[in-house]
């Protein structure tokens, strides 16, 4: 505000010095703006699309929006038919793209040949050569772009004639280096009417390409909710030009995708502005793993820049692409270590989860893992593992086998292994004979394989000794006894349907614990997130009717918070939901490997959000009639997350749900997708629910 005021005062002073009476400063500014718009206009093209889906989901709450029917905007980046635009304009996967260029008599048919997934830009190429060379606009050098400079946002949506002047909105550069160093910010009105268009300086040079962006949400529609708000973003054209050659290597058949460069680490504190960035996990085969960075290292510097919290790390790495080289300095104990030439990896290198293909018998204090179920044709099956066997040791193909303590211990060892490599296991058969088997680890999800849910699971799932301390494993430090849980041990806990309020009394929720509850058995926890408006007593009763029998027979506890707002869940309520879940887990015996966020519609969106943002809590997301609005977040080693997606074949969101499956598989999450024939936006029928319960029962797969 102050800066703006200073600016206009200064302008007035300047005007008094320089401007003749008949031309006010305002007139001059308008003339300059029109001249700048005119200078760039020949490079601003109009893009029309048809085909594709009508409905896309957008915003942090995943509100379905209609893909608008109007033309969108692009900017020429190659004389021979290359146009850059915002990925938002192609979010509905149109089958036909035509581009109209000012001064060219006919339109051109174009293909998407590349996408920059970090900055949400799409590169188009004409199918035929333009009748005359296109005009590439000049880029404003980034070094010249300063906060306070004039910025003009131009677009071609409002006027159907590409030979008319482009639409204009005038503002200033509000900030540089926004969205983890990727974007310019402007107060000119940025909206779907000019996404893909240029942000131009007073000399008619292009500062950047307008795109919706959000620091939290990724994906094509992230940041759309801020349209026309005075907070708009543009990716500097200079940055685009730097990667243009790579983008141009794509083709219509094989579009190129430019991904974010990843170090492959997660840090210990979930608060990005919190304490020093101490490494919690390192993905196998990641840039960090290859460089020799270790868990518990504290990152001190990236490319010579000091970093003192996770946000700083994001700032230093946020703008990087896969293949970019960085230098990382860490503190290991008291020793500083510098890793040079660390080549950032891509998510495409991410592995699935290494698995044997078994389910363990739960609540078992004995050392090792008793096999409850062997997945047909799984690595364990192929190696000859049978139900009832007890796996007692595991080790590399050439090396000594070591014992482990229970399913958790086995899971931790598997998490550090690499899929498709061989390991040796020692099993004790039912007849007490000991054998050593070689198993080629599988990968979850298996490439191109349909994710199956076992059709029938052995009923005996638990040794019913959850409260007993683990037996010590020879050669390993004794496991600590289960944390004291006075509520679980002594007094009689409440059972049945219980109506509750959270600690700060902002939310009501109910919990259902089966009457046959046994604290020695670990229960799956299903957090039900209702769709909009379905928070009435009768809606709750309907959910209870559907679930109670399953809860009894399959040892499930149901917890169902109500959204505070009539219009559905908001992102900030995830804290309350997590609090509800933790409260249940403090009172009852809950299997931490089988905590599921389950929701429908907006509740399903919330389930996705909860899954991605409460990794330490949620192991499964089961969503019906709900799609993932943003890109799937990266996997976190040893915090597995699985998805069960369900949609009616006539649900308008169906295509988006199918798309969500693809997005999740790209990030190597196990996904089950079920489509109900002839159903619309409806809850699961009995058969589907039956399968969902089996899916929940198999979430502790090893």
């Amino acid at each position, binding site marked *: 505000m102050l800066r703006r005021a200073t600016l*206009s005062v200064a*302008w*007035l002073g*300047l005007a*008094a010095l*320089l*401007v*003749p*009476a008949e*031309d*006010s*400063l*305002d007139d*001059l*500014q*308008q*003339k*300059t*703006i*029109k001249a700048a*718009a005119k200078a760039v206009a020949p490079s601003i093209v109009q893009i*029309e699309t*048809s*085909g594709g889906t*009508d409905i896309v989901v957008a915003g942090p709450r995943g509100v379905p929006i*209609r893909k*608008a*029917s*109007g*033309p969108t905007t692009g900017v020429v980046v190659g004389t021979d038919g290359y146009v850059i635009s915002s990925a938002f304009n192609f979010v509905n996967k149109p*089958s*036909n793209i035509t581009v109209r260029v000012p001064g060219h008599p*006919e*339109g051109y*048919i174009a293909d998407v040949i590349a996408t920059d997934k970090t900055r949400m830009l799409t590169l188009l190429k004409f*199918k*035929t050569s333009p009748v005359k060379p296109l005009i590439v606009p000049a880029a404003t050098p980034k070094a010249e772009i*300063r906060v*306070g*400079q004039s910025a*003009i946002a131009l677009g071609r*949506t*409002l*006027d*159907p004639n590409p030979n*008319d*002047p*482009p*639409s*204009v*909105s*005038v503002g200033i550069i509000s900030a540089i280096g926004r969205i983890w160093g990727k974007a310019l910010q402007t107060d*000119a*009105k940025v*909206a*779907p*009417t000019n996404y893909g268009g240029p942000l131009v300086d*007073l000399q008619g040079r292009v500062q950047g390409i307008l795109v919706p962006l959000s620091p939290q949400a990724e994906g094509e529609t992230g940041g759309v909710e801020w*349209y*026309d708000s005075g907070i708009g973003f543009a990716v500097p054209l200079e940055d685009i030009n730097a990667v243009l050659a790579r983008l141009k290597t794509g083709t219509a058949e094989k579009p190129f995708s430019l991904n974010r460069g990843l170090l492959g680490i997660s840090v210990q504190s979930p608060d990005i502005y919190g304490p020093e960035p101490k490494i919690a996990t390192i993905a196998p085969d990641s840039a960090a793993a290859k460089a020799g960075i270790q868990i518990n290292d504290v990152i001190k510097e990236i490319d010579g820049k000091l970093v003192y919290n996770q946000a700083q790390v994001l700032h230093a790495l946020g703008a990087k692409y896969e293949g970019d080289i960085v230098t990382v300095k860490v503190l290991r104990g008291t020793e500083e270590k510098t890793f040079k030439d660390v080549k950032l990896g891509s998510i495409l290198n991410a592995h699935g989860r290494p698995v044997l293909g078994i389910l363990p018998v739960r609540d078992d204090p004995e050392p090792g893992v008793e096999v409850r179920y062997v997945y047909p044709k799984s690595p364990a099956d192929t190696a000859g593992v049978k139900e009832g066997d007890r796996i007692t040791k595991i080790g590399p193909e050439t090396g000594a086998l070591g014992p482990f303590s229970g399913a958790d211990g086995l899971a931790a060892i598997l998490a550090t292994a690499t899929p498709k490599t061989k390991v040796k296991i020692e099993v004790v058969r039912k007849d007490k004979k000991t054998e050593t088997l070689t198993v080629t680890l599988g990968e979850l999800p298996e490439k191109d394989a349909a994710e199956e849910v076992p059709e029938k699971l052995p009923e005996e799932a638990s040794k019913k000794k959850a409260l007993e301390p683990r037996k010590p494993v020879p050669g390993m430090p004794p496991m600590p006894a289960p944390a004291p849980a006075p509520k679980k041990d002594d007094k009689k806990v409440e059972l049945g349907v219980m109506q509750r309020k959270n600690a700060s009394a902002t939310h009501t929720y109910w919990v259902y614990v089966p009457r046959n509850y046994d604290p020695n058995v670990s229960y799956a926890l299903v957090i039900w997130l209702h769709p909009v408006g379905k928070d009435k007593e009768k809606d709750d009763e309907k959910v209870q009717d559907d679930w109670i029998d399953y809860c009894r027979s399959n040892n499930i506890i149901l917890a169902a918070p109500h959204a505070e707002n009539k219009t559905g869940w908001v992102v900030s309520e995830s804290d309350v939901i997590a609090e509800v879940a933790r409260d249940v887990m403090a009172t009852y015996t809950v299997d931490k490997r089988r905590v599921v966020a389950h929701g429908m519609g907006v509740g399903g969106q919330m389930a996705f959000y909860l899954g991605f943002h409460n990794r330490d809590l949620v192991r499964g997301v089961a969503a019906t009639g709900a799609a993932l609005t943003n890109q799937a977040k990266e996997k976190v080693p040893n915090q597995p997350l699985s998805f069960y997606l369900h949609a009616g074949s006539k649900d308008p969101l169906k295509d988006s749900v199918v798309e969500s499956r693809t997005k999740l598989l790209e990030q190597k999450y196990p996904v089950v997708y079920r489509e109900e024939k002839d159903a619309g936006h409806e809850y699961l029928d009995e058969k589907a629910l039956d399968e969902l319960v089996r899916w929940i029962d198999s979430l502790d797969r090893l």
Partner: protein
Amino acid sequence: MRILPAFLRPLAALVLLLGLGAASARAEDSFADVAEKVNNKLVKVFGAGGFLGIPSYGTGILVSGDGHILTVASQMLETRDLRIHLANGDRYHAKIVAVEPELDLAMLKIEEKDVKTPDFYDITAEAQKAVVEPGTGVLAISNQFNVAMRAEPMSVQRGVVAAYSKLRGRRGINQAPYDGEVYFVDAIMCNPGGGGGALTTRDGKQLLGVVGKELRNTLSDTWINYAVPLQGKITIKGEKETKTVTVGDFVSQAIKGTYVTRDPKEKKKSSNLYTGIVLVPNVVERTPPYVEELDPNSPAARAGFKPDDLIVYVDGEQVVSIKEFKDAMDRYEPGAELKVEVRRGDKLSTLTLKLEDRGKKKP
């Protein structure tokens, strides 16, 4: 010259570049006088509403010395107790004189006798001026959100003309019956109560248009900010003749009391166009207009259409669905010649389609 702060240097350079640096004089960059002058010609309108998202307040522009007020047509006006507040705070009753639903405008008049309103816009004279181009600075003055009470001046917003183009508002709740040219503005001015306000140039010398209602745009599915320009016009198809009505016509006839408010429910005559194009079945809401087959020897066959062509533009306007294609065709009469661009393989081809009367269709 003194050394300028860095952020001003480009501007200074430009000013010099434009060759305007030589003369030195006092420049007036204040909108204060303009705002006051315009405000004196505006009224606050109060009517029915206050529920279901319909505001009970709005803005109007004085267009005669006898208390004629131009404003947007809205449900708010549908009351016997319509009141207006002049800029000086005087309160009067008002009644509707005429409504043109297709322009989305209404004319009101102060009911009390012999009330003079010396400050007003001469719409006929203003409408003669040229349309301004995108990038032109504008002021929007209205009583949006009913912020101003009685004699308080209305809210002034500054922006630029974003575009001058056809309005394609979404049908339904936020219906826009007017589909002619409008000024799109980059200031957020179409708020509750903003409708009926004045859009002027920054020097206040030209009234550009009447600020529109709250409306979503089908092109971008976003809220839009627009004003109906004084040069705006509609074509009214009657049973016998087709006539054009401009905003100026409406205002001058309404002031004289000769404007006939038409029945908004008057039916459009059904289309009797014949092209010979058979499109693919319209299965989803936005089935693209693919040609399935052609009647032999029909206008389309003669124009060179082929099965599997995808119709992309009709006279330069994109049609993304079968419904949009049919809507576009409704605007033409038999005998008209249109340029239709179709996608055939990897290329766009332009075909000239001559429309015929269905009655004359050959068996």
